[in-house]
C-alpha cells in the first residue's frame, strides 16, 4: 500500500493532496518510486493530458517504468537518482512558459527538492500539485552543522556529517527542502532515547 495518511502537525509541515488534471499548455510530472502510481491514477482520469506531458521518473528499484511509458507521454525520461535528473529538471523549467502545470508524486524528499527547483524558476509553490506515495523517510538538515542526511527513517538519528544525535522535527524549510534535526542530548550528553521508526 503506497498511501500513508500523515497525522495533523504544526503549520510548517508540508501537506500533500491528490493529483488532479488541470487545464494547461503543457504538463510536467515528476515522480519517484511509488509516486508512479499517482501518475497512473491521474492518467486514468485524463488520458488526453499525455500528449502534452513530460514525465521524469526516478524508479529507485521499482518497476513502474514500462507502465508509465505505456501512457505514451510526449516526453519520457528515467533517471537513477534525483541528482541525476536534476539538470534535466532545471533545463525543462528554464525553457518553460506560463500555462505549465507541475505535478509531483512520491517521497517527501524528492517532492521537496523538485518544488524548490520550480520555486527558484519563479513558480509559486502553492500552484504545484503534490501527492505523497511510498516511503515516509525524510530528508533532514542538521541545524548545527547544516549537513543534509537523506532517507532518515528513525528518530532520533545520528547526523551523517557531524555525528550529533538529532531529534526529527516536523519543522520544515522549503528553501532547503528539508526537515530540521535538532540535537536531542545537548544538556545531558549521551542521554539518548532508543531510536524508533517514524510513525511506528
Amino acid at each position, binding site marked *: 500500500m503506497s498511501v500513508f495518511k500523515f497525522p495533523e502537525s504544526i503549520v510548517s509541515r508540508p501537506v500533500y493532496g491528490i493529483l488532479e488534471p488541470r487545464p494547461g499548455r503543457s504538463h510536467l510530472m515528476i515522480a519517484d518510486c511509488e509516486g508512479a502510481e499517482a501518475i497512473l491514477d491521474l492518467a486514468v482520469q485524463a488520458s488526453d493530458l499525455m500528449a502534452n506531458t513530460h514525465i521524469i521518473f526516478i524508479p529507485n528499484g521499482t518497476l513502474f517504468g514500462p507502465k508509465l511509458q505505456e501512457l505514451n507521454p510526449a516526453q519520457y525520461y528515467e533517471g537513477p537518482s534525483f541528482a541525476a535528473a536534476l539538470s534535466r529538471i532545471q533545463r525543462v523549467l*528554464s525553457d518553460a512558459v*506560463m500555462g505549465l502545470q507541475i505535478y509531483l508524486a512520491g517521497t517527501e524528499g524528492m517532492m521537496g527538492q523538485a518544488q524548490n527547483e520550480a*520555486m527558484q524558476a519563479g513558480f509559486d509553490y502553492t500552484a504545484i500539485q503534490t501527492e505523497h506515495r511510498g516511503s515516509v523517510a525524510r530528508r533532514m538538515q542538521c541545524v548545527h552543522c547544516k549537513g543534509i542526511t537523506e532517507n532518515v527513517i528513525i528518530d532520533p538519528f545520528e547526523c551523517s556529517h557531524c555525528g550529533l544525535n538529532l531529534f526529527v522535527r516536523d519543522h520544515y524549510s522549503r528553501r532547503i527542502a528539508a526537515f530540521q534535526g535538532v540535537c536531542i542530548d545537548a544538556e545531558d550528553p549521551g542521554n539518548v532515547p532508543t531510536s524508533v521508526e517514524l510513525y511506528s
Partner: protein
Amino acid sequence: MNAPAPNSTAPKSMGAEKIEVVVSAIIPLNDLVTRFEFKRIDGCQFPTFSGGAHTVVEMQDGDLTRMNPYSLMSDPAETQTYAISVRRDDQGRGGSLFLHQKVQLGATMTLSFPVNLFSLDLRARKHLFIAGGIGITPFMAQIKQLDAVHGNWELHYSCRSPDLGTYVDELCAKHAHSVNIYYDDKNQSINLENLLDGQPIGTHIYVCGPKGMIDWVRRTATLAGWPDAHVHHEEFLAPQPGKPFAVRLAKSGLSLEVGENESLLEAMERLGVEPPYLCRGGACGQCETDVLESDGTFIHRDHWLEDDEKSSGIKIMPCVSRFDGKVLVLDR
C-alpha cells in the same frame, strides 16, 4: 531615510494613521482626469510606499465627510510629494466631483498612510501589467518602483481614445519598448490569448480597470493554465447609491437610517460608531460586520466575503454593501 514618526497631533482614526496635507498642485490631464499633488503641513517627509498602494482621501464637503481611496501614482521613493490622479465620475456619489470642482490649490486635506492591497510579487521573473482607463494609476507607481531596480515589466494599456489616454505620452516617451497602447476608438484591443501564450515561467499578471476587463483577464488566464497566485487584480469599487434602509446597532444601542447617497459604513461613522477600515472599497476585510438579525435581502457588493458567507446572511461589509428589507440588526 526613515519615515517620520506618526504625527501625534493627527486626528485619531479607525483606519490607517493620518497625515495633514496641503494641495500643492492641480494639473488637468484631459477632459476627465486631473492630478492632485500634496505636501505635508508639518514639514516632515511622507512615508515611502510600495507601488500599488492607495491613500484614503478625506474630504470635508459641507457637513459631509467623504473618504475615498485613490491609488498613489507618484514615485514610491519620493518623500516630499504624494500624487493621485482622479477621473471625474459624473454618475458617482460625488467624491471625484468634489475634488474636481471644489478643491483648490492650497486647500488643506487629510490623507491616510498608504495601504497596499495590490502589491508587486517581487519573486516574479517578469511583471505583466494590463490596465484599462484610469486603472493605469497603480502601475505608474509600480513602474517607477521596478525601474529603480531594473525590473522586467511590460505594460498593455487600453484607453478610450488618444484624447483620454492618461499618461500615454509620458509612458511612451520613457519606455517606448515596454509600453503597448490600445485605443477603443481605433478598434484596437489587447489580443489576450496571444499575449498570455508563451510568457516565461515566473511571470505575474496584474490587472486594474473596469470589472469586465478584470473578469476577462482572470478567466482567460485560468483557462490557459495560469495559477491564481500569478494573477493579481485591483478593482475600483466605490459604494453605489441605493434605496435608504434602516439599521439597528446592537452594541451601541443606536438606530439609524442609511441615506441614498451614503454607505452603511459612512452612516455609522456619522453617528460616532467607528468600525475599523482600510480600503473602504470591499477588498481589505477590515470592516466585516456580524449580522445578528435580518428580514430582507442583502445587496453584497464586496470582493471579501466568500459566496457561502454572502448567502448565509450572517456577515456584511458595510463599506460597499447595502440591504433591502424590514429589519437589520448589526453587532456594532
